[in-house]
């Protein structure tokens, strides 16, 4: 019987010989990635049964795949994520995706490079009192807050759905906060280790600020959504596209 470790090493060698070139918006260049493995595909599909938290679980899985499969040590952001994950999907399963009997050609998406907008970092001033700096988060920052949120849900399993969705929304905004200055007091969010402290700062901001923060977060959601749209259909970046 052949040696299993030798076989697995052989597979690793094969994967390294079949790297995928993916255009990374934040780097404005192509970087090579290892192809998606069967294990990674299984993890993606399993996330679909997680219920309310499936999106959060799935994003953590995607972030982990990006970190493991990248051949370069780079800081990727959540906008890069949709380009990378889609490219890995197309490499594994081809350009077709069928939804409700209609087959979409994903090469129409991947042939276009997703460009990062110039304003990935913005400043907001609220009534000349509060200055807020927002920046599109890295996948590491995304994972840290997702993990905290999942932990919180696990400890409070009876949280009503509406409350859960509210929490997800607030934590989503939190990912983008890098600095808050009130009068002369500056709070550098990147330096704060405790997520619960960050949340209490956010929750104490005037409600009027949230609208502007949401607009900024939505900008990136819209960029991602527009990129993933083909023939008036927006591709769901979830387990469904990995089961075909």
């Amino acid at each position, binding site marked *: 019987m052949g040696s299993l470790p030798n076989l*697995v090493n052989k597979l690793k060698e094969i994967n390294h010989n079949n790297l995928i070139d993916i255009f990374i918006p934040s780097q404005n260049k192509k970087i090579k990635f290892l192809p998606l*493995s069967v294990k990674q595909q299984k993890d993606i599909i399993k996330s679909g049964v997680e219920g309310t938290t499936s999106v959060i679980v799935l994003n953590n899985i995607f972030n982990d795949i990006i970190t493991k499969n990248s051949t370069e040590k780079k800081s990727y952001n959540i906008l890069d994520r949709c380009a990378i994950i889609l490219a890995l999907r197309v490499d594994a399963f081809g350009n077709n995706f069928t939804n409700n009997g209609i087959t979409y050609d994903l090469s129409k998406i991947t042939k276009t490079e997703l460009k990062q907008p110039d304003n990935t970092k913005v400043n907001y001033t609220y009534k000349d009192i509060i200055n807020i700096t927002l920046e599109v988060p890295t996948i590491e920052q995304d994972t840290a807050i997702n993990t905290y949120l999942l932990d919180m849900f696990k400890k409070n399993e009876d949280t009503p759905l509406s409350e859960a969705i509210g929490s997800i929304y607030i934590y989503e905004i939190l990912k983008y906060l890098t600095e808050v200055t009130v009068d002369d007091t500056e709070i550098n969010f990147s330096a704060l280790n405790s997520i619960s402290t960050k949340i209490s700062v956010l929750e104490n901001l005037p409600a009027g600020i949230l609208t502007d923060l949401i607009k900024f977060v939505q900008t990136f959601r819209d960029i991602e959504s527009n990129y993933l749209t083909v023939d008036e259909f927006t591709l769901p970046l979830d387990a469904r596209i990995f089961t075909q």
Partner: protein
Amino acid sequence: MEFKLPIYLPVCKKTVLCRELCNRDYFQLLKYITTNNLAYIGSAFEELIIKLTDKEIVSAYDKFVLLSTLRSIIIGDYIEIYNTQKETIKYSISRIISNLSSEISNVNHNSQIQLDDLAINLSLPTTLYFDNTEDVIKNSIVDIIDGKKVIKFYKYSNDDKDIFFDSLPANVLLKIQEHMSSIMQKIDHLELIATDKRVNVEGIACNLYSNILLEFLKIIYSQDLMQFYELQYNLTTKLNVSYVQFMDMTPAESKIFINFYKKEHKASQTENNKINLAVAAPNTDI
């Protein structure tokens, strides 16, 4: 000299010599069947095949043919199945196998996936039992060719198969699924038991990518454990067969001996009845 049954296996297209199933092994098998745990039953059958043939039989369908043929010869060819009206209908196991095998042996069930200089050979599944869909997919891999080395993947443990399978690129999974779909399309009309409206029988599809073959084996080998103990009791007490002798017999031989005993016992009773009648009747001669 040990008697062995020659049994033709349609997937590998070879004849293997198979020892008879003795009561000792049948008894253990019955205990596993009583658990109704398919995983255990599957393992028991796999172990039995190795014991009886000393050979590696790769394809699950070949294992199925071997075990069904063995059952047909050593225990009996007929099984009774209930129809929708709860009536029993008899079926010949050898006929079922013959009909299925003639179709399956005509299907091309081999394909290969090339991964640089690694070749993955696919065929029909190699195990009788599947825990889940992933098991079915994994066990469609027969062997892997690495340069000149042929690695018998079907011999790996489940854990080792998992490690290799998880390391494969995801596009290989798609190719394995395409291989399975292609075979399924060719044999999706096959039935273990054919639908027959004349006798109210609902057909049982023969899906090689499910546990149906194992379920069928479980049914055809099933016997009430108490009946087995009763047979052992009768042979050992009535015919002075020792425990070891009983265990070394085949189930068919056990039945033959017990039938001899019953026939003799019946003849002896008939004789006794005649004598009793003669004694009871008054002597009319004066």
